[in-house]
């Protein structure tokens, strides 16, 4: 079946098997493998993307459900060589090890800080509890969130 979806601001078309997930559409048809396939049951958050602005697990959404709608992925967070402050903070704090969970975490953190620019640690832990990381023990991811939140607030203040 033909699916037409706006992905990172650009309308794309693909002929997919009707059972395909949005994750499969992104990864295998549209050349956007940044969203990861770690559990394919909505448990790990590695495939987190925005669908019409809502944070979803792309593995739990059918490609067909994305027809005519807007999807934003990790690849759309910062153009070209540019880095989003959250991405910078993840690199700087050592929040990345194998990196397989990282795109999903970065998207989930971006969503969180958009809704709540000054989250408490408890709030951050609750908000990110749907994203699994097997390498870091989360300490440095929490550090990255604090650093990114501080920097993003600072930039807001400067504007």
């Amino acid at each position, binding site marked *: 079946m033909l699916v037409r979806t706006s992905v990172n601001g650009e309308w794309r078309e693909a002929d997919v098997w009707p059972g395909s997930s949005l994750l499969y559409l992104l990864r295998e048809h549209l050349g956007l493998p940044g969203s990861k396939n770690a559990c394919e049951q909505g448990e790990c958050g590695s495939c987190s993307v925005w669908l019409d602005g809502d944070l979803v697990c792309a593995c739990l959404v059918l490609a067909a459900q994305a027809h005519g709608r807007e999807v934003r992925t990790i690849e759309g967070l910062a153009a070209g060589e540019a880095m989003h402050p959250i991405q910078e903070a993840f690199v700087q704090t050592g929040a990345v090890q194998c*990196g397989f969970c990282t795109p999903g975490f970065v998207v989930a953190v971006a969503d969180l800080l958009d809704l709540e620019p000054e989250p408490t640690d408890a709030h951050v832990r609750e908000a990110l509890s749907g994203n699994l990381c097997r390498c870091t023990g989360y300490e440095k991811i929490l550090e990255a969130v604090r650093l990114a939140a501080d920097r993003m607030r600072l930039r807001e203040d400067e504007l």
Partner: protein
Amino acid sequence: MSRRVAERTRTGVGSSVPRIDGVPKVKGQFAYGSDLWADDMLWGHTLRSPHPHARIRGISIGEAVASPGVHAVLVADDVPAFRFYGLEFADQPVLAWEVVRYVGEPVAVVAAEHPELARRAASKIVVDYEPLPAVTDMERALDVDAPRVHPYGNVLMHVTIEHGDPEAEAEVWVEGYYETGMQDQAPLGPEAGLAVPAEDGGIDLYVATQWLHVDRRQIAPCLGLPEDKVRLILAGTGGAFGAREDVSMQIHACMLAMHTGRPVKMSYGRVESFLGHVHRHPSRIWMRTGATREGALVSVRARILVDGGAYTSSSAAVISNASTFAPGPYDVPNALIEGTCLFTNNPPCGAMRGFGAVQVCFAHEGQMDKLAVALALDPVELRLRNAAATGTVLPTGQAIGGAAPVREVIERCAAIPVPPDPAPGIRPAVELPGGVAGNVGRGERVRRGVGFAVGYKNHGYSGGFDDYAEARVTLSTGPDGPVAEVHSAAAEVGQGVHTILAQIARTVLGVERVIMRTSDTQVGSAGSSSASRQTLVSGGAVKAASEAVLEELFERVRRDARLSGAELGVDAGVVTADGEAVAAIEEFLAQPIECTRIWRHRETSPMDERGQGDVHVGFLFGAQRAVVDVDEELGLVRVVQLATAQDVGFAINPQNVVGQIEGGSAQGLGLALMEEIRLRDGQITNASFTDYLLPTTLDMPPVEVELVEEPEPGSPFGVKGVGEPSNVVAPAAIVSAIRAALGRDLQRIPVTPDDLVGLRPPPGVPPWPPSPDVPGPAPTPETAGIHRTGEVPAPDR
């Protein structure tokens, strides 16, 4: 020792430089095995056994072959040459024939144009199975009348270690029995790779793995190709933790690619990942610990059983390791330790972070807590009184030759401030065990407990294994100054080894720009990214190759600048003579300098029949203290804080080292509280992240980390491996804290709510199992004449 050097080069050893693959990883641009794609590629799929033990009477593939989009359906008879593989012994069929020995064993593989078409075709393969009696309990496997997993019996290996007077008497004895569950490594990146047929009749395999060259050693004989026609390239690897030591989809993808002449990608889903790699051995441990009334250890007697599952994998090394570490990092004058690994019809077990030391740490630290109670001594004080040190003779007869700051590790850990007790009154639900979603009470029955554990682990391969790594370093002129290129086959699995190797090259060569080439088999073996060994061994190789490059550079300087007597050096891209700048390094790089070096650690020796030998090359020590809140009514646990001190030799990248310690602690917390592969008749009943729980941000507490840096003699820059000790000690520390909170004995990990509310009473100390009658101490497959991996296979197999 190397601090001075570290300060010289800003991004060299000793500095927390960001990891070199960090930017592509945060941007979603890093290509993992499952992200690979080629024009015209097919998708591979594996059909697996639904039986723990069955005879295959026949396989019918006709309907599958005729399915739409299918290009190949291959069974055992299609394996081009040798039909077995295995990390140490080639006892595992590439595809089963005649017999299957565990649920999940590969029976057939399919290549099709879409993964769904491949799945559907595989479901049309008809396998005629005759179920056979299965043995799925390790103690039952010891019985002489138990069903046999292999013709040579169910004992995979039996180890005996005798030390001092094994019958020594002590004034005070404590006895315990401990069980640990089967843990999954659960790397987030699934097993995945892409096999591409090459024009020369060979194959190029892009794969996520821990050791490219040992994969190739197993793949090439099965494909009937010489090793130089099997080229492996490391794909982005989404974690490993031991799960990628064994071959998974490698041979299957190559077979399908050679058969179809097209690139074939295989990428496991999560369910298949649980079936497709080995797990941490479940264990049962009986232990008797004797001491003087003053608290000096006199003797340790231990009986260890571990379940190796259906095939050998690295089990022989795991049971050896478990046995050598069983007494704990203490000065123990007398010991009798017996360890047995059994074959069963359960899924194969093999390497996981901690490699045998995790299971026995849970036991020896449980014993130390019991002893502290029996002697009315503070548990930390008891450990200090018995702490091993440099020179301590271990039960293997090996004297610890390197750094052994056990006392300092214990003291530094114990000195980390304990979090304040909660204020009296009703606590917010978010602070209670189970949190907002899980705790329906008000915390009336929440008890706090503190527990402590000390443990140790080797780095590098042990028991006489020739442990080496090769590295190639090239120094040349780039557009912006001198550039060093490092070519190493050391698998970057997330632990950061490529960043570490680049830091080493920067420090030795005094250049900022270091390029890490993709790891592949065009350079010699680096050994595995396991056993906490890559910083030591590949670090040693990169240091040696860089020093050889530097020596050649200095030759040129002496020749071209006529500086024969001066002491030469490099700093920030400049050659110095007696501390004075001579010229830019590039002045001497009209021709690039390339050097390849091999580094190996000192020789070790295997254990003899009494378990004596210079077994391990070096030891890593860690201590951990856990603070927990336990809701004794609901059986829920919240870990409030983990505090840990670890003996790391020298931290080449402190941020990275702390990250390893935090991550290892998290996997330990998982084993302590939630992670277990549950089996029913050999079948995994929780093969998904919905049913197999991993710690989340709500489960992991803050981890306070102290690095103890005492340089290890003979190690490059004094390093020790850092990945494993926190994983070894965390389960023991956490369970110790829960016991302290409840005043109840807990003998099994993971600890479940049923254990805590008393629905599953502790088993006490069951009878010690008998010692098996096997020709020791070699692994049974060896005495049975099973082909050892790396030897030329016999033509009839």
